[in-house]
């Protein structure tokens, strides 16, 4: 059962073509990382899946085309790269925003809404922060709060845009381990954009490389992450070290031996 399928997905922003006929086929429960150099269209791809920008082509979610934003938000949750944290908003209220697709603009909080929020806050170890303002939290805590809001949507598909930017190594691992655990527990489908290629290789089932608005390679980490592919599309010189749990990408230092 495909979770999300795109067929000839093309996007132009302000007359400039960004995506050219992207075909994706992501299965239920799969974790796919989208990698690609800056400006290759990763965020635009996520935005078109979210329906927040106009596109041509066809996007099917769970086998159907969804037009209504509210319906889409029930199956698709989004963790933006730089979320807007409103001043003075408490963690509990921020997480409750995730219930919006279930109650609409005018609905009140039901017991179910509160129960879901409690469950998510406990699962993400955020219960002690409920009465804190989101802005007063550290980067790692904040990222978990944003993730909590997305999980409160109870959507089957999680879209993560650079979820590890601005986090130190330990917190990067924490967040991705958390997503992986949740994926297994709740059967989530995860689509993430990532800059760190080693992390992209370590987490998830499949990598799709986006370059100039096209998916150029797609497959397992060791199929996609070769020194040639990275040199061609990232303009980087790297060495690939094959480890048992995935390839490690190391920048190759220029020759520094004394002349």
């Amino acid at each position, binding site marked *: 059962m495909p979770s999300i399928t795109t067929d000839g997905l093309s996007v132009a922003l302000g007359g400039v073509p960004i995506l050219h006929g992207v075909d994706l086929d992501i299965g239920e429960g799969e974790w796919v990382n989208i990698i690609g150099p800056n400006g290759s269209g990763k965020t635009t791809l996520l*935005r078109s899946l*979210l*329906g*927040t920008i106009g596109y041509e082509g066809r996007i099917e979610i769970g086998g159907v085309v969804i037009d209504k*934003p*509210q*319906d*889409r*938000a*029930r199956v*698709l*949750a*989004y963790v*933006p790269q730089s*979320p*807007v*944290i*409103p*001043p*003075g*908003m*408490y963690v*509990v*209220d921020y997480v*409750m*925003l*995730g219930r*919006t*697709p279930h109650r*609409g*603009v*005018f609905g009140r*909080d039901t017991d179910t809404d*509160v129960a879901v*929020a*409690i469950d998510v*806050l*406990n699962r993400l170890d955020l*219960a002690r922060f*409920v009465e804190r*303002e989101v*802005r007063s939290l550290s980067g790692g805590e904040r990222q978990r709060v944003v993730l909590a809001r997305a999980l409160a*949507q109870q959507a089957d598909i999680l879209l993560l845009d650079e979820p590890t930017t601005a986090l130190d190594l330990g917190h990067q691992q924490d967040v991705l381990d958390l997503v992986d655990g949740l994926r297994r527990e709740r059967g989530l489908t995860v689509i993430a954009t990532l800059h760190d290629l080693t992390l992209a290789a370590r987490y998830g089932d499949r990598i799709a490389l986006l370059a100039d608005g096209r998916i150029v390679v797609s497959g397992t980490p060791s199929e996609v992450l070769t020194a040639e592919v990275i040199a061609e599309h990232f303009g980087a010189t790297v060495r690939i070290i094959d480890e048992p749990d995935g390839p490690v990408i190391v920048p190759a230092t220029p020759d520094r031996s004394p002349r």
Partner: protein
Amino acid sequence: MAIEPTRLRAPALGAGFAALVVAVVAGLGVGPVGIAPRAVLYALVDAVPGLSADSGLSSIREAIVQEVRLPRVVLGLLVGATLSVSGAAYQGAFRNPLVDPYLLGVAAGAGLGATIAITQNLGDGSGLVDLVPLSAFAGALFAVVLSYGAGYIGGRSTASLVLAGVAVASFLTACQTYVLQANSDAFREVYSWILGRVATSGWSEPLLLLPYFVVAVAVMLRYRRALDILAVGDEEAQALGIDPRRVRIHVVVAASLGAAAAVSVSGLIGFVGIIVPHVVRLVFGTSYRVLIPLSILFGGAFMVLADLAARTLVEPAELPIGVVTAFLGAPFFVVVLRTSRREVW
């Protein structure tokens, strides 16, 4: 674990109503003829059709409360509440703390409308109705339509709408200045209109404003949650399943209508739409679920007290209320800003 989402709780609501009652009793009781709070309350009850209460006041004193001061206090309540709630809603819709209810040219348009009416002697009482407020209202709505039109041409973004509002306001202010210069004998009258007042000789002004007040307040209360969602920005709001543009246009139209009606009966009372919502934020938090209802209550109370100051500080003369709101409001705001530990923007 007890988790409770933010909502308007009894103490905050109680504080709002207490402020309102204090303001109303003071507004009705204080003046050249002083009337005790207890008698004011009885006279108030007595003024409600179908109820009667013996205030123990002479009929002249009771008439002062019921017929002279009450319409004025009610008008102050309506104007203050409308301007405050419109300001709060505008700030939420545009996610900008400096935005006030006059953002889309309401003040400039109303000023032009009133100036034309005054200089053409439409408001001298010779007609059946006073045309100054109607002309001001038409001018205010014209300005909003113009701003929306110009903003739409400019790309429909929030920023282009704000810029269009600034351009329209400047343009209409220039027109107003021109009309006034060409009729300099009306200078004093126009100037006094612009500085604002909530004086009324009866119930016609409060009744004129009432329907717009009801619409503005009803729409804002209904959208208070939506404004909280809008706080995360358009893209995330959309990802949460709402249509931010739709929310924004409903809120802005209701707020503009309310502000236009308020300005048309009271003149250009400044500062209320900015100061009251910000004080409420600093004291009670930033959620629109709390801010919208409390802006209505505290806005009404603030305006009644400002009017009380306007008519008593330099008795028997009256200060323009726009002067009072800023003169008292600005220092008060600084004090609240200094004592509050909240980060609200």
